[in-house]
């Protein structure tokens, strides 16, 4: 995998994302029916794509730059969504079906009498933000610290990330955990006092998502383009050599792992604000693998590619499932095959003027049967 450290395209992508989001947001505020107006459906859809783009960016950071194929990043995305969902659930207040200001509806339904301790304070927006970012970060820190310290890598790491999100999915499906079981959290009314269904709120949320995505893109560019990014790529390509040079690969990887979890969580939080529901299905292992394919389609290790891939694949999914619902899985499957077989550098690889020969620059990342004993 070749890596340029300038990521010039990232700057343009960031700008494009922000401008497009702002324009769409403004257009949605025009009176419905006018030539340039955008329907609320499109606004929500775009918000969803951009939230997914954040998840894709998070996957790209760890897969593209650290060589960790994560099959569990949707877990951080979902945890972020649940964190925000907790605040939004509490913000419903007494307007729920049971009119109980202190307990969310599903807890009343389960005849609970008190809020579980981990819900304390979630009615404050700031506590919600701390939950939504802190929990995924702590989980990622713990998981990464354990995994990288004992040098779990490659396939093994992939499998246990998958096991992690699977375990979380099973846990969140349980009513006893206090997150609404099967149904998850939904029925939100407003955020910080703004009606979530109002077009203006939706427009602001879309614009906000665009701005955050742009900012994250720029931040990632700065991080990956700098000294840290170079060390990280060195770790990806030859971990032992980097270690022998005096770096601490486990720390380098841990940093990107936590940063990536935070970005995913941010994506999840913005997702739940605009979609209005989060349920345990978000933890499904298939979702994480799909996020990986977005990055692969766009081109891994390019930052811009992640955004392009996420938007492109999800746009395709929207189209496909509307027109030919039975064929979406064929399409997605074929996409997986075609990307890995014919487009190892994704769309970004196509866009480059000089097609690069991958083999010259690839260094084996993990166990390589062909190269054993070499």
């Amino acid at each position, binding site marked *: 995998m070749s890596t340029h450290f300038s990521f010039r395209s990232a700057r343009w992508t960031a700008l494009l994302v922000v401008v497009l989001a702002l324009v769409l947001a403004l257009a949605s505020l025009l009176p419905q029916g006018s030539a340039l107006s955008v329907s609320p459906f499109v606004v929500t859809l775009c918000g969803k794509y951009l939230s997914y783009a954040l998840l894709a960016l998070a996957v790209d950071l760890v897969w593209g730059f650290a060589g960790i194929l994560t099959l569990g990043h949707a877990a951080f995305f979902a945890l972020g969504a649940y964190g925000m969902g907790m605040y939004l659930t509490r913000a419903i207040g007494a307007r729920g079906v049971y009119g109980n200001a202190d307990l969310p509806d599903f807890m009343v339904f389960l005849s609970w009498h008190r809020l579980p301790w981990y819900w304390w304070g979630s009615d404050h927006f700031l506590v919600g933000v701390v939950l939504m970012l802190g929990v995924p970060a702590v989980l990622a820190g713990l998981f990464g610290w354990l995994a990288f310290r004992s040098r779990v890598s490659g396939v093994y790491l992939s499998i*246990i990330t998958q096991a992690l999100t699977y375990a979380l999915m*099973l846990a969140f499906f349980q009513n006893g955990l206090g997150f609404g079981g099967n149904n998850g959290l939904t029925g939100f009314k407003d955020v910080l006092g703004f009606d979530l269904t109002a077009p203006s709120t939706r427009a602001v949320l879309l614009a906000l998502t665009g701005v955050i995505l742009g900012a994250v893109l720029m931040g990632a560019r700065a991080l990956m383009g700098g000294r840290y990014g170079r060390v990280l790529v060195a770790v990806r390509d030859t971990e032992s050599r980097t270690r022998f040079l005096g770096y601490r690969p486990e720390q380098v990887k841990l940093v990107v792992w936590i940063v990536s979890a935070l970005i995913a969580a941010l994506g999840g939080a913005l997702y739940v604000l605009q979609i209005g529901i989060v349920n345990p299905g978000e933890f499904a292992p298939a979702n994480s693998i799909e996020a990986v394919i977005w990055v692969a389609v766009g081109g891994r290790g390019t930052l811009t590619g992640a955004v392009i891939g996420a938007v492109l694949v999800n746009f395709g999914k929207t189209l496909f499932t509307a027109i030919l619902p039975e064929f979406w899985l064929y399409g997605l499957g074929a*996409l*997986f*095959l075609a990307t*890995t077989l014919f487009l190892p550098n994704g769309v970004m690889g196509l866009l480059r003027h000089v097609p690069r020969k991958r083999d010259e620059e690839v260094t084996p990342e993990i166990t390589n*049967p062909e190269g*054993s*004993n070499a």
Partner: protein
Amino acid sequence: MRKAGLAFTLCLALVLGSPCAPAGAQEATPDPYAQLASPHFDAIIAGIEALGRSGDDKALATLQALGAHKLMAGSEGVYIHAGTGLVDARTGQQNADIDPASLHPVRVNNRVRLVLATARAELLLAQGSRAEKHDALSRMLTHPDASMLPALDHASADPANKSLRSEFEAARAAILLSPGAPPVALNEQLTAVSAIKKTGGLGARSLLTRAAALEALAPQTREAAKKAVASIDFRLRLWSYAQDLFYGVSLSSVLLLSAMGLAITFGVMGVINMAHGELMMVGAYTTFVVERLIASYIPALSPFSLILALPAAFVVSGGLGILIERGVIRFLYGRPLETLLASWGVSLILQQAVRSVFGPSNVAVTTPGWLGGAFALGGLEITTVRLAIFLFAIAVMAALMLVLRRTPLGLHMRAVTQNRRMAALMGIRTARIDALTFGLGSGIAGLAGVAVSQIDNVSPNLGQGYIIDSFLVVVFGGVGNLWGSLAAALALGLGGKGLEPLIGAVSGKILLLVLVILFIQRHPRGMFPMRGRGIES
């Protein structure tokens, strides 16, 4: 027959200690057959009780008919509704004169049913076949009734009932330890306690628990009963552990079956085949298709369609595996993470293909009769299917070991695994071995699919339920090590079932996943890492 019945009545009367009434005096007591026709439940019950004690050879048929709702009451008496017409219950004669419209069924309520069961048991003890007697005795064990003691004693004295001696003793003991039992000597009570204890089970436990609280019994007896309850509890607990163990081993064998194919493709070849679960699903659907084909073309072979499905599933899944290897995987060797994504793509396509062909809902795969049901082994309930899957898993594992250890293909496979370049230099066609290895692994997935079709829903999503568990088994056990997979399957299966009663099935599974994750952090290459230079890059 009639004479014998009369003699029996007389003996019964003697045993009961009632004054031996002359036959003519029976006229004075109400006629039981007439009582059955009464609209009052009390009279019906009295009639049933009288019939039960009568030993009349028509009584049993009458009571059986009553149990089957075939006893009709008229003004003259009661009639059995036989297939051809009405039979007078008292005489056993066909009676064509009765107008069926004038009859109504004998009234039955729960109290009547209870008395009926007891009376029938009494009659069966005297007149029934061995199996009927056995049933009657087990009923007495659960519903002891002191009034049956004489009948019981009389029947147990019959030399023909020698083979049922322990059952008779248990039934008698149950009566002696029940409320309303005639007072007997202390040592007889103690014998009764130990006789009940010997029968074991929950019925004996509740009997003894009741006896322990019964004021009428001697204190020593109650103490003995208490002890017997404790000992039964202990034994039951042991059996329930054994039952959990069986469930755990059964789950382990399913895990092992689903992981074995993966142990080949992932362990031996280093290929992460996310379509493994779908190859299992294809095996399950092959079972379905084979079953349907045989049912419509060679119905005589239907009971054995499952056995015929085994080679079919192996060939279909194996062939599909070779196709996947030749078409996709071989371009991605050395890039395990890419094979993961590509095979995930294959799995999506397979799922959707099956959904398009067979529909999105479950298809019904029948379990052949010889594999259905369950049997008791001591206090264990063994489901035949689960036992068969356990044996099948062992057989597949043994066969796989043989192939790997004793055949040229196995030799070449191991050579390629250990050192691909060297193997190629020795003249092994590594590409061919790759395809065959992948085919073997996929074929075993197909076999696993046949097994799973017997215990799980066969739907396009079948594979998704197994893929994560199978990967965990392989990684946990140590990649490339079949024995490790076996140990991991046992650990996960037994652990899962062991945790189930403590914290629930789902929480147990979560805990197990977390434990495996933590374990892999400590031992990144599983329980039994493969050693050797060939493995480390």
